[in-house]
């Protein structure tokens, strides 16, 4: 099958059985790859009500047709599972070089199922596939394990590894790869940990069949040329995602002290240019990337190095915790990566705990003696370690802010910043209605990458609530995650403004199937509806209330900064949902109607 490895590897950890199946042609036709495969497998193979950390849950790792190909950004793979953090759908996208090796080993998907009786790692070298004992690796941090494998096997082997966070089932444990890339959100690392899989080690050398090699070569070159000539290339490669720090601060979107404001007095020393000048030592890209956004940093104060911090980490582990020292943010980044926990959820959860302390809901008795005031760097470092080990206050925070605030009560639910149990990522949305709606309706919880609409808010009017604004969010949700389906990075389109139609001939040359972006958006719409149906299947009371944002954004306007005094009323929030549901073809309670399921051809999938 052109553009595909051709096989799905099924790893039954309970029995130790390893089997390969051919990738079904109709699956590739209808769901293409990546998170398209993921949601299909999740609905079909994981029974309703499965414990996310139990043997019935599975972890689906899928590449897409441009993964491992010479197409800008062809270095992404999707990790889908039932999320320990939310009890709903999780799909985490990971960059680096792992997905290319999957393809070269002839694999489109790896399915981890069951639970191993002892710690293991999965070793794949082309057709040699083995489960190997990992008892001596269990308990080790991610960097040490990756380094050990690289030294033993060689740089060409790619490693995906969990740290103590995953082993200890932290609800937002991540999977680390290439030292600084992660499948970050929703707790995919905890699922891997629950299965006692410490790492996946992979290497392949097989060819990938391509429908039209000459057109593929030319189409790929056209994409690279467009990237290198892009107006924004120099800026983007210099600063990567950190270029938005100052802008977010200016427009009141920079999460500050647990999202109580969107402007931070210390933003200047967290900015991209400041970081580049003071701590960045080199750039780093993923597979086949012409615009490397990764930044390697040296923290002299701590005698350490890290890939990062990215914008999200700066927002959540910096301004959101009242920290303006970029070296300290980078060190927090290092601790989270090495211990294997998501920097976004960790920073958000610590911010919530700091506000509990500020309000007197927590005293030092509750914080294991830590002086948990905003800006206390040492307390943050200590808490990150406690979260990964699930010790003391860290055990509470390891459950995520939704569960933690429910346990603590005392009004702390009001400033637990999440949607559907996933901690909100790095944009404060007090007055940005499209971005707020994007968070409310995102299919994994409050994550930004499906529909990033805040610039649109500012251009057309932040408070405005119109059908056009909602339509924009829906279009982004159908379109942007298609990069996670085809196995590519969206940032070339997003940040360099590459004409998306340049991907069309490349995709066709690889797969032999002509698909326009309109065709791909239709697939995106089908996937979006399936993820919604999955949430509803797994949660009996699922509906409109699950889409509500944190009360902070409709009850508690910032007292300082660019959005001082600004808020989106609950009435407006519900109006946004009314329009959104209507445009999606969903009921007033936010569930896809029978007519919508029928019109999208999804009846057989959800039957």
């Amino acid at each position, binding site marked *: 099958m052109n553009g595909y490895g051709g096989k799905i590897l099924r790893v039954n950890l309970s029995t130790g059985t390893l089997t390969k199946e051919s990738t079904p042609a109709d699956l590739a036709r209808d769901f293409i790859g990546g998170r398209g495969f993921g949601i299909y497998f999740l609905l079909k193979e994981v029974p309703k009500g499965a414990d996310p950390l139990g043997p019935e849950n599975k972890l689906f790792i899928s590449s897409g047709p441009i993964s491992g190909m010479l197409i800008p950004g062809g270095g992404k793979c999707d990790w889908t599972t039932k999320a320990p953090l939310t009890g709903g759908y999780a799909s985490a996208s990971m960059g680096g070089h792992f997905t290319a090796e999957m393809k070269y080993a002839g694999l489109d998907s790896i399915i981890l199922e069951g639970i191993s009786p002892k710690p293991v790692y999965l070793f794949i070298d082309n057709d040699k596939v083995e489960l190997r004992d990992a008892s001596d690796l269990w308990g080790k941090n991610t960097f040490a394990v990756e380094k050990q494998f690289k030294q033993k096997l060689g740089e060409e082997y790619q490693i995906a590894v969990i740290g103590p966070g995953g082993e200890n089932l932290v609800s937002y444990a991540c999977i680390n790869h290439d030292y600084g890339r992660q499948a970050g959100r929703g707790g995919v690392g905890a699922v891997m940990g629950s299965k006692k899989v410490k790492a996946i080690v992979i290497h392949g050398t097989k060819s990938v069949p391509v429908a039209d090699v000459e057109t593929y070569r030319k189409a790929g070159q056209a994409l690279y040329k467009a990237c290198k000539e892009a107006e924004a290339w120099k*800026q983007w490669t210099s600063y990567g995602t950190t270029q938005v720090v100052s802008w977010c601060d200016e*427009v009141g979107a920079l999460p500050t002290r647990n999202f109580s404001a969107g402007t931070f007095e210390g933003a200047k020393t967290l900015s991209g240019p400041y970081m580049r000048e003071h701590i960045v030592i080199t750039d780093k890209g993923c597979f086949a990337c012409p615009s490397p956004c990764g930044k390697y940093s040296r923290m002299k104060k701590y005698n350490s190095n890290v890939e990062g911090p990215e914008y999200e980490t700066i927002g959540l582990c910096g301004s959101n915790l009242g920290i303006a020292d970029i070296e300290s943010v980078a060190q927090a980044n290092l601790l989270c990566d090495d211990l294997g926990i998501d920097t976004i959820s960790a920073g958000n959860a610590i911010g919530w705990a700091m506000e509990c302390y500020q309000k007197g809901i927590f005293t030092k008795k509750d914080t294991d003696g830590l002086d948990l005031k905003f800006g206390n760097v040492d307390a943050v470092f200590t808490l990150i370690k406690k979260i990964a080990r699930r010790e003391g206050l860290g055990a509470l925070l390891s459950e995520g802010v939704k569960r933690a605030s429910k346990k603590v009560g005392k009004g702390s639910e009001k400033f637990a910043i999440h949607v559907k149990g996933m901690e909100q990522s790095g944009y404060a949305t007090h007055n940005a209605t499209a971005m707020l709606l994007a968070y409310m309706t995102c299919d994994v919880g409050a994550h930004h990458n499906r529909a*990033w609409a805040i610039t649109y808010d500012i251009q057309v009017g932040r408070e405005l609530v119109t059908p056009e604004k909602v339509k924009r969010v829906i279009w982004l949700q159908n379109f942007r995650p298609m990069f996670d389906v085809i196995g590519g990075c969206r940032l070339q389109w997003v940040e360099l403004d590459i004409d998306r139609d340049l991907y069309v001939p490349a995709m066709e040359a690889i797969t032999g199937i002509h698909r326009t972006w309109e065709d791909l958006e239709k697939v995106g719409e089908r996937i979006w509806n399936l993820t919604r149906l999955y949430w509803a299947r797994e949660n009996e009371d699922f509906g409109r209330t699950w889409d509500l944002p944190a009360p902070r954004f409709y009850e508690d306007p910032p007292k300082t900064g660019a959005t001082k005094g600004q808020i989106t009323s609950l009435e407006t929030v519900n109006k946004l949902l009314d329009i959104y549901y209507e445009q999606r073809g969903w009921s007033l309670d936010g569930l896809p109607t029978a007519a919508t399921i029928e019109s999208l051809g999804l009846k057989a999938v959800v039957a």
Partner: protein
Amino acid sequence: MPATLRLSGPLRDFNGGQTEVKVQAGLTVREVLTNLGIVPETIAVVVVNDEQGNKDYVIQEGDVVRVLAIIGGG
């Protein structure tokens, strides 16, 4: 000699799809953007003659000013 403003991405829609527009020296970047119908707050990055600038920079004759809107986020 007039100055040059270079627009990227969807900002070109405010200039008939063209990347480059000649602008009058003596105005701030903010004023030039407003005159084109671009809300200045959408602009994340201003680069003047390959150096970091800002929206309050007063444009000089011969300057090449690049403005970038963040359209996608991380």
